[in-house]
């Protein structure tokens, strides 16, 4: 696919072998956006598997009624830890930290982000936050048992080590904010000549929208968490009913951040899917402007729907109705993306490559997640579904089926570019089967259990939910097997994979025009952009 104009793969000066400092220091002191991306990837992989292991253990606990492998308090700590790790340390940094860092500068034709040193600093904040979170498990009086939401007044009263865990989340927030600031500035300032906003690929568009959410809402969680700490140490009273405080305001502040944070998690995955679909269907993306604008729309409307987490918390009827309506509205831009992706497939030359397979799975699973979300936006239904397994099933469809599979798809799509190696396509497809089957066994069953009335976060279950719990637990085994197979696929490819060409998929965006793995400076000369990002020319292709 590449022309002779391009240097051969593994050209001199790949970022993996840049000269200068060698070994570990060469990585943890490097301000190269590509190296920082790899630092994040390593951390995130470890954390993801830690979180997943806890998930599997929780499922195992539910295999039989009563205590199976742990005590109730341990279970409380487990779901808190699973949530904190997966949310704050995997899906929120997730795609921006890994693929955003690696690809944003390349996709817009730049040599690095605007603030490379700040970029490295965000990674250090991330590591510091992670270390503090781990410390909170083993110091103080027991691991936190509040759930990842740290709801007041329980988080203020519980004797477990909440203060340190909350401080860890505060530090992780810094990392997220700094990455957001960096990406927004980079997109404004470092686009290659000729790359107008409407010639910018859709992954950068998604990162741009994500960046604004990160910058504008993360400080709210920062101050909220700080107040929890102040409350615990000094008793300032802002969330303490005994002093006139109102715990409902904690929920408001928490969700003012944490609902938009859902879009911090999903938007970059949508951006990656918008790159993968046209590349593997070899067809211009359908509705480019709509997909780009819908990212911004999701960021804007998504910031106004937070109170739909609180329909049963005792807000006024008027507030409930308004937030319900806004929640329905936010489904529109997401649907615009789904329809445009499927329209892109129409009359495309679809290669069912592994990234494409996972991207299509993303669309399927995300659609279920999105539609179950709309169900909960309806006030009457919400009263029934609130705090049940239906919620748990729903957000795993969005976060894992969406962002998780988006992450896998992105990994499969860009692995050859990042590492310069090709993985076994058969192994990637073989991993898909247990992943897909296990995922739906686990989480669709949760949706059903929730509708039957199984409450979330309960350590035990009543006999009528037993069958469902067994099915879900068996699903978790398939899912775990699939994850291990996929990880194995990548690890084997790292060591024994064939060398990847510069452009294995026939992509037209800028990352495919440079060698795999990319050279330190990305581009020998900064390209000038003269065309929209996804122009496939069937005559030239061959």
């Amino acid at each position, binding site marked *: *696919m*590449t*022309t002779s*104009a*391009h240097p051969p793969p593994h050209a001199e000066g790949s970022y993996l072998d840049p000269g200068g400092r060698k070994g570990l220091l060469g990585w943890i002191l490097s*301000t190269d956006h590509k190296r920082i991306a790899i630092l994040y990837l390593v951390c995130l992989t470890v954390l993801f598997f830690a979180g997943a292991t806890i998930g599997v253990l929780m499922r195992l606990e539910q295999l039989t009624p009563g205590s199976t492998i742990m005590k109730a308090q341990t279970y409380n700590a487990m779901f808190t830890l699973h949530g904190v790790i997966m949310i704050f340390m995997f899906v929120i940094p997730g795609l921006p930290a890994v693929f955003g860092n690696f690809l944003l500068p390349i996709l817009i*034709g730049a*040599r*690095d982000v*605007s*603030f*490379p040193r700040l970029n490295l600093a965000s990674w250090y904040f991330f590591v510091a936050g992670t270390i503090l979170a781990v410390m909170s498990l083993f110091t103080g009086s027991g691991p936190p048992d509040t759930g990842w939401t740290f709801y007041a007044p329980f988080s203020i009263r519980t004797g477990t080590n909440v203060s340190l865990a909350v401080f860890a989340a505060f530090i992780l927030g810094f990392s997220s*904010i700094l990455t957001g*600031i*960096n990406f*927004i*500035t980079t997109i*404004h*300032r*470092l686009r290659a000549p000729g790359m107008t906003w409407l010639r910018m690929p859709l992954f950068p568009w998604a990162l741009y929208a994500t960046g604004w959410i990160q*910058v*504008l*809402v993360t*400080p*709210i969680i*920062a*101050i*909220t968490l700080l*107040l929890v700490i*102040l409350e615990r140490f*000094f*008793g*300032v*009273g*802002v969330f303490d009913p*005994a*002093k*006139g*405080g*109102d715990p409902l*305001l904690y929920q408001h*502040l928490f969700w*003012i951040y944490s609902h938009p944070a859902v879009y911090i998690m999903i938007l970059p995955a949508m951006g990656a899917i918008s790159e993968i679909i046209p590349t593997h269907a070899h067809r211009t993306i359908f509705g480019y402007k709509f997909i780009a604008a819908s990212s911004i729309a999701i960021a804007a409307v998504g910031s106004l729907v937070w109170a739909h987490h609180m329909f049963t918390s005792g807000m006024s009827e008027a507030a409930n109705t308004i937030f319900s309506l806004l929640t329905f509205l936010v489904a529109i831009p997401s649907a615009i993306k789904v329809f445009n992706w499927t329209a892109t497939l129409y009359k495309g030359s679809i290669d069912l490559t592994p990234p494409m397979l996972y991207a299509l799975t993303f669309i399927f699973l995300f659609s279920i997640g999105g539609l179950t979300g709309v169900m909960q936006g309806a006030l009457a239904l919400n009263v029934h579904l609130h705090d049940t397994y239906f919620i748990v099933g729903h957000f795993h469809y969005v976060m894992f089926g969406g962002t998780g599979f988006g992450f896998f798809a992105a990994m499969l799509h860009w692995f050859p570019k990042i590492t310069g190696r090709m993985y076994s396509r058969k192994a990637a497809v073989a991993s898909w089967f247990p992943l897909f089957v296990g995922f739906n066994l686990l989480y669709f069953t949760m949706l059903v259990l929730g509708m039957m009335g199984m409450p979330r976060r309960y350590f035990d279950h009543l006999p009528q939910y037993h069958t469902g719990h067994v099915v879900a637990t068996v699903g978790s085994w398939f899912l775990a097997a699939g994850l291990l197979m996929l990880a194995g696929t990548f690890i084997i490819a790292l060591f024994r994979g064939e060398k990847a060409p510069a*452009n294995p998929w*026939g992509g*037209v965006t*800028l990352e495919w*025009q440079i060698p795999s793995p990319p050279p330190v*400076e990305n581009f020998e*000369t*900064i*390209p*000038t*952009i*003269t*065309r929209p990002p996804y122009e496939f*020319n069937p005559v*030239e*292709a*061959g």
Partner: protein
Amino acid sequence: MTGGVRGEVLAAGPASRASHRDPLGAKIGMWLFLFTEIVLFGGLFILYSAYRARYPHEFHEGGQHLNWIIGVANTVILLTSSLTVALSVTAVRKGRQRRAMALLALTVLLAAGFLVNKYFEWGAEIRAGLYPNGPELAGRAPGEQLFFGLYFSMTGLHGLHVLGGIGVLLAMIGLLWRGRIRSDDFVLLENAGLYWHLVDVIWIFLLPLFYLSA
């Protein structure tokens, strides 16, 4: 396949990372950071307005226990320090490094003065038992306890920002001394000034909300 289409060579060759200078980019980054600061305090302002609407009388009572003279004095001090920092930017732009350093040193002194006032003010309130869980405050109405909870949280967070600002300003003096901030490259000082103005602006909101609420 799309080969050299995008690869038209730019006249400017490969620029090394180190030589990359983008003052406008740096300012955009700073403004984004300032937005995050505003939102950070914004969370507290939301709480303040919610509770003030619920406990108007208690907030009025609470305000009477604060010393508005110190509050106004500190406002004058901070406004003056904003002026001196702005003047130091102008001085650097005109190439007058020494004058800029002197103005920054004056700013640091004013900021320190602000904190000294704050120290005596907090000290008096704490001695009177008017602090969260304090002997005097604990017996008062819930709304008044909230007033003081918010007062200490918000002025405390602001005080930390003043302290951080002193660090930043001292670093700027150091950079001026070493010639790293010059008349042709002073975006760092401009950004430090922006940060200092923000600290000032937040105080301007805190003054009426607490000291003048009585």
